[in-house]
């Protein structure tokens, strides 16, 4: 059943390629249908899922000579991320409804990426996982370089080279572990039972972990993320921040940590320190950005730090917090990028906070302002939204191991409040104290900057906003909806070694 998320996405690509060039509307509807179908399949899979099981979806020999299998399966972690992918994909389509240049090709690349992402989350054969992982990397280049904005070619190349470098490290690690384990299987369930020698784990763990962590935006390998997010078109930044960064974190958990528990044991303090540096550093850099989108870009780095910190806590509460944070950040970063990229930038054609300050957007576009306030609150961790539950769990988990780091993280959260507040104030509520001056100024500005009036918020955008905020609220108010599948999955045999190593 869940395998159809992958197939539907690739069928969508095929359908889009066969459409005539000029049919913009048809391309949109095909895209919407594909994204919704994928999401619904994910939901149906969730409804059927028994908590705690590892659901084998399909398992066929693929290259029998080398022991490679076409093996799709899902546990609670994969399932959560599949749901996230569905939501993010749907949101991305809704928020790029106004795209008119080469629409068909745009959505073809878009769904290639989505299909790859679904595939990664569902693969239990590491070779297959890597195949999907690379499939997800390549379209990003074209999405950014063709449809992007600020310094798009540079950003696209930087992003893809970083990703490809990371995946090269992963590939070296995968081939090495395949050979060390006897070169007859890539099945992660079997490999997780294989006791890799300690000396091997010590170098293989950082290799694979860093390879994946580059994509997760871990400091100091994060620099592709802000430039990439900023240059990408809205739907692509939503996917990049929302889903692609999760591929990295998921890889760290599924491959590096599961297979190399001794390596993790040796390196986990380093990872935790880097994660916390990422949290604080990302927040501090976000505080001084002039470009609205860069604020969100760096906030992603900061929030992904929570995921990495949660992963190395190695207790159930921290790990499930990390997975929950992946979901939460995927939704919220997507929403924030939608606000900045689609709702603000496409209408005002600027992202400079100082310019936006004079536009009094809270009056002109109250819906957008409200959306950003809600999303910003959720992202800084207001109770009631998904971010709060997730970050709280991560911090509780981390407290047992690294109390000092948790205190530093607290500072990071405070800075997080500050940068969100600053961006919100500058972008939407600028100069509210001087109504007389500002009203004349803004009317001047409107006539100067754009003869076109700011177009109203369209229906697809409204639907998208409701969808994403609804998801965040649902998880925030009733976290059990996801935790009931996430938590039991850490009891599966897959995490046996990890449990022994870390006292999970």
């Amino acid at each position: 059943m869940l395998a159809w998320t992958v197939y539907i996405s690739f069928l969508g690509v095929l359908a889009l390629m066969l459409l005539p060039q000029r049919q913009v509307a048809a391309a949109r509807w095909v895209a919407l249908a594909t994204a919704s179908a994928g999401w619904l399949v994910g939901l149906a899979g969730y409804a059927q899922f028994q908590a705690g099981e590892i659901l084998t979806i399909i398992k066929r020999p693929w290259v029998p000579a080398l022991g490679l299998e076409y093996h799709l399966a899902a546990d609670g972690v994969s399932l959560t991320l599949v749901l996230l992918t569905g939501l993010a994909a749907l949101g991305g389509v809704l928020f790029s409804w106004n795209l008119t240049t080469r629409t068909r090709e745009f959505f073809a690349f878009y769904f290639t990426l989505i299909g790859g992402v679904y595939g990664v989350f569902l693969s239990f054969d590491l070779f297959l996982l890597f195949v999907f992982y690379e499939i997800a990397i390549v379209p990003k280049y074209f999405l950014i370089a063709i449809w992007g904005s600020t310094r798009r070619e540079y950003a696209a190349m930087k992003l893809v080279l970083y990703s490809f470098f990371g995946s090269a490290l992963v590939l070296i690690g995968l081939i090495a572990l395949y050979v060390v384990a006897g070169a007859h299987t890539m099945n992660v369930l079997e490999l997780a039972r294989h006791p890799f020698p300690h000396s091997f784990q010590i170098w293989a763990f950082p290799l694979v972990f860093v390879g994946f962590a580059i994509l997760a935006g871990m400091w100091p390998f994060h620099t592709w993320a802000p430039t990439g997010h900023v240059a990408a078109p809205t739907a692509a930044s939503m996917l990049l921040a929302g889903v692609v960064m999760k591929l990295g974190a998921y890889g760290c958990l599924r491959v590096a940590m599961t297979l190399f528990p001794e390596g993790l044991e040796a390196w986990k303090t380093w990872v935790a320190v880097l994660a916390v540096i990422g949290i604080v550093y990302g927040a501090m850099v976000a505080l001084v950005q002039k470009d609205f989108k860069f604020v969100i870009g760096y906030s992603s780095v900061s929030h992904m730090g929570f995921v990495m910190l949660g992963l190395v806590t190695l207790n159930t509460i921290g790990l499930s917090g990390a997975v929950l944070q992946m979901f939460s950040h995927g939704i919220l970063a997507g929403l924030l990028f939608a606000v900045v990229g689609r709702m603000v930038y496409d209408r005002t054609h600027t992202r400079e906070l100082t310019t936006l300050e004079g536009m009094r957007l809270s009056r002109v576009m109250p819906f957008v302002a409200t959306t950003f306030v809600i999303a910003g609150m959720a992202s800084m961790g207001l109770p009631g939204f998904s971010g709060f539950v997730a970050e709280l769990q991560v911090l509780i988990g981390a407290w047992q191991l690294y109390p000092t780091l948790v205190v530093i993280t607290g500072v990071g959260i405070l800075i997080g409040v500050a940068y969100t507040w600053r961006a919100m104030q500058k972008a939407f509520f600028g100069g509210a104290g001087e109504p007389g001056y500002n009203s004349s100024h803004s009317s001047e500005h409107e006539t100067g900057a754009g003869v076109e009036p700011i177009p109203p918020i369209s229906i697809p955008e409204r639907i998208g906003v409701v969808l994403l905020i609804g998801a965040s609220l649902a998880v925030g108010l009733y976290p059990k909806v996801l935790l009931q599948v996430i938590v039991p999955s850490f009891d599966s045999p897959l995490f046996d070694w990890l449990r022994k190593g870390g006292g999970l």
Partner: protein
Amino acid sequence: MNYLELLKLAAPETIVVLTALTVLAVDLTSMRGIELRLRFIVGGLLTAGGCAVAMAWMLVMPMQANALEGMLVVNQLTQIVKGCLLGLVVATVLISMEARFTAHPAEFLALLLFSTVGMMFLVSAEDLLMIFAALELVSLPLYVLAGFNPTSRYSAEAALKYFLFGATAAAFLLFGLSLIYGVTGATELAAIAHALGGHGPEPLLLVALAMLVIGFGFKLAIVPLHLWVPDTYQGAPAPGAAFIASGSKLACFFIFAKIMMIAFASERIAGSADARALTGGWVSLLAVVATLSMVLGNLAALTQSSVRRLLGYSAIAHAGYLLLGVLAHDGAALAAVVYYAATYGLATIGAFGVVNLVERQMGNDSMSSWLGLSRRAPIAALAMMIFLFSLAGIPPLAGFFGKFYLFAAVLQTGADHHLGLLWLVMVAVLMSVVSFYYYVKVLKWIYLPPPTDVPSSRDTANVSRLAQIVLLLVALAIVALGCFPDLLVGPLQTDL
């Protein structure tokens, strides 16, 4: 062994020779005065048909024999390699049918087929004499193919460079082979290994091995014998360059790996510490050469503005990857080398096919000619994306599986998984990140919107439909081999 049996064993080769003669005869007798394009198409179809018959023969009549002490060895592995070679010939012929570089299509095709016969004999040879003779049969038609465009000065330059380097390399090779004969008194590979039993790394043997590497290094396009590659790839007519880059590579890598594996691997030489030292010696020599090829080829390709030269330098890099399979010297690595070289060849032929198409449209192959190709010829652009991504090693294309298969096989060699060649694999994988940059650079020109609107509707008419369909077929073959590697890996593995 009587002549009839020998003829049966050499039947595929015979069929190819007959095809070449038929192509010549048909063109000479009944095609005079007919439009050039039609002549090329008829000749091309005849050639492809002949190759198909030869392949079918090998499929229907599986044979296993070792005729005349290694002169003609026929087994499943050699037949698979020959099948791959014939497949590459068919692909080359298909992309050349639209070419306009010559008024003598039949001669071109016949030379292509004669060279193929040489490759097929080369693959089947396990005797130094036969290897040398077959290698010359491969090379001589290729020299002519490189210079087949009489209107281009670059083509003449390409042929001359290729010939001069090739002749020198052949001299080195012959000298090396004669030294080996002098030391061991044998020309059959297995006999050489047997005779080497008492010998250690003696100076004479080392000189012979070095000469062997130099002689083959030219054919394989490895550093420091790579100087002819970019120039020849740039000047030769596109189909000629494509065949030099694909078929000749596959055959030469196969035979080079076989020589090293059978004659000079310590496992086969009657066990002594000396033999191990000898093997260690050439393995480390090849390791250095492979590293140089990977690094230099990839770095030099970064700065190229001509796509042909870019493919030339990337060929050097790929030769470096393939050398890893040779220096691993075991059966699994040999199978991986065959898979890698065959799929690499296919992707290269496809890429040259697109180069050919762009050159016909725009006059040259510099990067700016590729601007907006995705509008002018969307199918060719998509095909080029597949070829280049396969070369870069992006799944699910054949090039990726080739890399995985090769590197896994290389890491597995040596005693109980101690990952002795790990550093080489690391260099190779990291260098493929570099290669990704320049392949994407070409794709950037193809797919990115042109800054000023390039005229598009006028050019679209010039792109022949046939050419695009052929390219699409080659691209589909690469996707199929990548998604279902077992098509080729299965037969290769069962033979080990």
